[in-house]
């Protein structure tokens, strides 16, 4: 309960106090409390199985209930963990990028965005999912619009239009499901849907939900809003959204496709199997190719995110334990990689004021620790053994081979080569080029920013070698998801 309540209480409290410094302290306290609560939940789930909590004391189909299983616990941990890193890091960066009179609004919106994402994760009710989706979306539109470049405004507006269409599609889908079943509770829907699954209404509802969530996931070709959003948003926002937002949307996709409709309907009867695999592959290849030619590093990473989403969707489409495990694992792992990378770029922005590749020359000599973090997270993004990126790709390849789809395994390899090219380009500039002669002397970013970057970079290595915890949890989550409907 506390996991969502902490940021929910913090947001109005921040506004009531109305001071930037106090706002940051409150936000930090809230995310730490939330993270602690997420740890407690994960502990409980791993011992006793899924948790249900009826809000308002009304039992499930009548009232709204929380439902947290292995998967939910893992996502909660990921999101709150990233939030702790981002908020710790935020103060110097926000002081540089956001005007003072608006800073406490900024922290307030950040808390709301976090609360929205957590609320989506924890809920067991489809309409409630929509409500919290909108809380996180509305606050993220505004947060993105606070970027210093005017293109941030345009990116935020485009995202608003696409996001609202997506949300309306989700609403239509929910309406169709309600029409045929009379319920909004996820568990109840899973029970009642098979009876009416063979109707056009349910099929259409399923299609609307898929497209609507696909927009939020940035599933190729519905990803057009994403690159500019990540490129022009304030550093803190890029890091937070880049590491969490699309992941929670992928989680929602998993919950709805596998948790409610069930494997047989989603991936058997509907052509989603082919669709997810096809679009996932296209996303991996095309976005990686664009990333190779991108010169703004933030946008390069944004395209890489579209590609990574492709991997996740691919894993779901495979519909076997290893494939789904890979997807779930990648939710967690990708948050670590992109969190580290975007935070590191935020530090670069803080010191240099630019993230264009030509301005990063010789960064390895000027900010060695930040540059080292970029190197580690970059290697992880490629999927070098010993990093987390390798673990999820390994499971994905296993899943592909299990389904007899060896071309897909080749595709994963090809995607990794493309990632190698664009990451190498970055590493080469950062480590092997000399800084421009007129470059001003600079130091590392303040410790407050540096520490979260290094912690996340280290986590990339730690969880890459020590896979029991994450892979184990992901595998159990995948088995639970696939088993429900067998």
């Amino acid at each position, binding site marked *: 309960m506390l996991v969502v309540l902490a940021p929910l209480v913090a947001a109005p409290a921040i*506004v009531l106090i109305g001071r930037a410094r106090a706002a940051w302290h409150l936000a930090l306290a809230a995310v730490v409390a939330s993270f602690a609560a997420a740890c407690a939940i994960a502990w409980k789930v791993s011992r006793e199985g899924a948790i249900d909590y009826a809000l308002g004391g009304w039992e499930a189909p009548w009232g709204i209930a929380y439902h947290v299983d292995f998967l939910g616990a893992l996502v909660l941990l990921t999101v709150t963990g990233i939030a702790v890193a981002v908020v710790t890091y935020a103060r110097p960066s926000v002081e540089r990028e956001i005007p003072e009179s608006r800073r406490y609004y900024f922290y307030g919106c950040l808390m709301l965005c976090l609360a929205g994402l957590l609320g989506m994760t924890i809920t067991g009710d489809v309409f409630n999912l929509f409500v919290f989706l909108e809380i996180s979306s509305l606050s993220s539109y505004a947060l993105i619009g606070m970027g210093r470049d005017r293109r941030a405004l345009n990116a935020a507006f485009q995202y608003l239009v696409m996001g609202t269409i997506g949300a309306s599609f989700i609403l239509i889908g929910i309406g169709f499901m309600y029409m045929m079943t009379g319920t909004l509770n996820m568990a109840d829907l899973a029970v009642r849907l098979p009876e009416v699954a063979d109707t056009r*209404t349910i099929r259409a509802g399923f299609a609307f939900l898929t497209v609507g969530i696909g927009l939020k996931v940035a599933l190729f070709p519905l990803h057009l809003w994403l690159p500019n959003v990540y490129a022009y948003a304030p550093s803190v926002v890029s890091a937070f959204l880049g590491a969490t937002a699309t992941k929670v949307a992928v989680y929602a996709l998993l919950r709805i496709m596998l948790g409610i409709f069930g494997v047989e309907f989603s991936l058997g009867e509907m052509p989603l199997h082919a669709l997810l695999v096809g679009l996932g592959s296209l996303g991996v290849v095309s976005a990686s190719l664009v990333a190779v030619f991108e010169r703004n590093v933030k946008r390069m990473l944004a395209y890489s995110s579209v590609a990574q989403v492709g991997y996740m969707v691919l894993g779901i489409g495979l519909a076997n334990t290893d494939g789904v495990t890979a997807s779930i694992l990648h939710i967690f792992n990708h948050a670590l990689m992109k969190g580290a990378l975007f935070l590191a770029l935020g530090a670069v922005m803080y010191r240099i004021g630019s993230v264009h590749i030509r301005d990063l020359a010789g960064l390895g000599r000027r900010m060695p620790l930040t540059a080292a973090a970029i190197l580690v997270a970059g290697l992880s993004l490629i999927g070098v053994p010993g990093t987390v990126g390798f673990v999820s790709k390994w499971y994905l390849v296993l899943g592909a081979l299990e389904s007899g789809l060896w071309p897909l395994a080749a595709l994963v390899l090809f995607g990794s080569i493309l990632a190698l090219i664009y990451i190498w380009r970055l590493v080469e500039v950062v480590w092997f080029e000399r800084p421009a002669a007129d470059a001003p002397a600079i130091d590392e970013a303040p410790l407050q920013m540096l520490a979260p970057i290094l912690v996340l970079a280290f986590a990339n290595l730690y969880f890459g070698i020590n896979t029991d915890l994450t892979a184990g949890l992901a595998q159990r989550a995948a088995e639970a998801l696939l088993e429900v409907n067998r």
Partner: protein
Amino acid sequence: MLALLVVTVIAAVRSTDLFAAAILFGIYSFLTAILFMDLDAVDVAFTEAAVGAGVSTVLLLSTLRLTGRYEQRHKHSPALPLVVVGLTGAALVYGMTDAPDFGDPEAPAHTHVAKRYIEDGPRETGVPNMVTGVLASYRGYDTLGEVFVVFTAGLAVMMLLGTRVRGGRSSGREAIGDLLVLRVVGKVLIAFVMLFGLYVQFHGDYGAGGGFQAGVIFATALIVYDLVFGEADARRVMPHIWTERLIAIGILIYLGVGVAGMLLGGPFLDYSKLATDPVKGEHLGILLVEFGIGVAVFGAVMSIFNAFSGLRLPSEGGRDDV
């Protein structure tokens, strides 16, 4: 009714005059509200009229002051949008061919969860208006989320537009002239509007209405004051910093009620623990929560309106001829 709606949409698609489009949007919302009345959704009709036809249209008009009245003719071929729209429409119609008949009382939508709300709702919550009962109690957590949506919008708008009063127009006298009649009528009108707001706020458990509608109505009263007596005077009545604090206070009331339920040994938002008799507790909880909603919505609408109207003054080359 339905035909009118169709005509309105077609007109809105074709119009390049955005002022007209904004007004058409207001009409469209209003027609929808009437349609909702017809379909027995009185609470929804009330809200749609106040929010859709009222607040949205006012916001649209204040935006147009800043962004210009006419849109350009676009040069793109409409083929792609038409394909997307066509596909969407086809999917919708496809889905509806298997839907239960209109108004069928045996449809699954009415026989499962909703049945309890109708049969037991008033008894279990102590509130005769089932919509209020479901809204504030059975699905109280959704409504909490909804108040947070309002809060988010308020914060987002204030963060994007800023909250300073720009320019120095001190009172409304120059704005609409010193018309005695208008001022007197304004004062009387405001008194009635506020009285009506109070009625809606505290009568929502018996009739149509509740915190959302009341908050909007109260805000309207203050906006009328703003228009008649000028911004500076209105802000003396309700300084900006207080409108945003009111949102926070309203939300904290709601959260407080929820946490109180927890402290008394129930789950979050369990009102039945608030009094010795569970039904009384439910009723009390609903009233308190609705009050919190009213305060928060009032604050949010005021904040958003102030943020938009604060920008109106400097005429940064964006002020066309509205």
